[in-house]
């Protein structure tokens, strides 16, 4: 049976079976690795796990009833790290380390260790399926980011709308840009995304308002300047 290592919500776990992952209740943001893969991939890129996700979505209630307990056995199975796989262990880019200082050093050490057994199985790994689903990852493909990317702050556009179209909406945009970054730095990624979206809407509102009022303003100006004419 194939075993998986999973990276979800910044936490790494493994080895786990398909059933154990199903019980974890992960979503599409999770990354997985199993022996035979050169690097971490999105969970949706592994056929059987993607199917499991789809099934879990339809039968989410059933999945919830099954208590997500992890059998003791799985932990005992934790294999040792052979030298060879250490090289394969995806390295975390420097940037990510800076962005997620709360990540414990431990996580790196837990980077997928390839058990001896799995190494033997490696030739059987459905490489074809993997390559058919997406581009082949280079061996030194960076590890998935622990922290998601910061959602756009839209700050430039907020400043531009402040000066050009509609000051109040632009200022609101700047405030949302600030909130986006603040929440992001605090690790509150969902709120940061929300604030980013609100900021984008404020700017869109300002631009639409500007596009509506500008022609009216121009026409008004034109009428006024015509009245100034002698005839």
């Amino acid at each position, binding site marked *: 049976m194939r075993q998986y290592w999973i990276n979800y919500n910044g936490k790494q776990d493994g080895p786990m079976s398909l059933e154990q992952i199903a019980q974890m209740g992960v979503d599409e943001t999770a990354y997985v690795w199993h022996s035979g893969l050169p690097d971490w991939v999105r969970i949706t890129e592994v056929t059987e796990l993607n199917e499991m996700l789809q099934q879990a979505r339809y039968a989410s209630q059933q999945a919830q009833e099954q208590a997500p307990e992890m059998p003791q056995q799985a932990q005992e199975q934790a294999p040792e790290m052979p030298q060879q796989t250490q090289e394969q262990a995806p390295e975390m880019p420097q940037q990510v380390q800076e962005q997620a200082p709360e990540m414990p050093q431990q996580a790196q050490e837990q980077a997928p260790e390839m058990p001896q057994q799995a190494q033997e199985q490696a030739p059987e790994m459905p490489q074809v399926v993997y390559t058919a689903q997406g581009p082949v990852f280079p061996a030194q493909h960076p590890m998935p980011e622990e922290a998601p990317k910061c959602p756009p702050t839209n700050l430039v556009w907020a400043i531009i709308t*402040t000066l050009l179209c509609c*000051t109040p909406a632009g200022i609101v945009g700047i405030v949302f840009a600030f909130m986006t970054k603040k929440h992001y730095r605090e690790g509150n990624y969902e709120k940061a995304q929300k604030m980013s979206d609100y900021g984008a809407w404020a700017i869109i509102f300002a631009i639409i308002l500007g596009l509506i009022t500008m022609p009216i*303003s121009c026409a008004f100006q034109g009428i006024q300047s015509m009245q100034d004419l002698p005839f």
Partner: protein
Amino acid sequence: MTRKRLLLGTGIAVVALAAIVVYVCFNPSTSGLFPRCLILSLTGYKCPGCGSQRFIHAMLNGDVRQALSYNIFLAGAIPVIVLYLLNDYTRLLPSWADKVLKHPVTIAALGLLTIAWWVLRNIYNW
């Protein structure tokens, strides 16, 4: 991707060139072609960007002093906006620039500066 970018770049360049020609040739203070500020029209108070069009017209005609008298804040804001655009849409700036430009302190400072300018220019009629 590159073709799309080329098209987009050409489009932006053409629009920018047209805008520059319009702003060189026509004076926003006398011509009826230009939109007036919504806030100024509705409330009688200047917005932080009021005078931008006259600023650009004067600047493009080489009258720096006149331009600064219309909106001195814009003289500082334009380089900042250019920096942010370069940072967001090109890779010309080093990676630390993004950290500085998107730092909450920077964002808060920009917001407060804008509001301060907005208030002060209406008090002292700048």
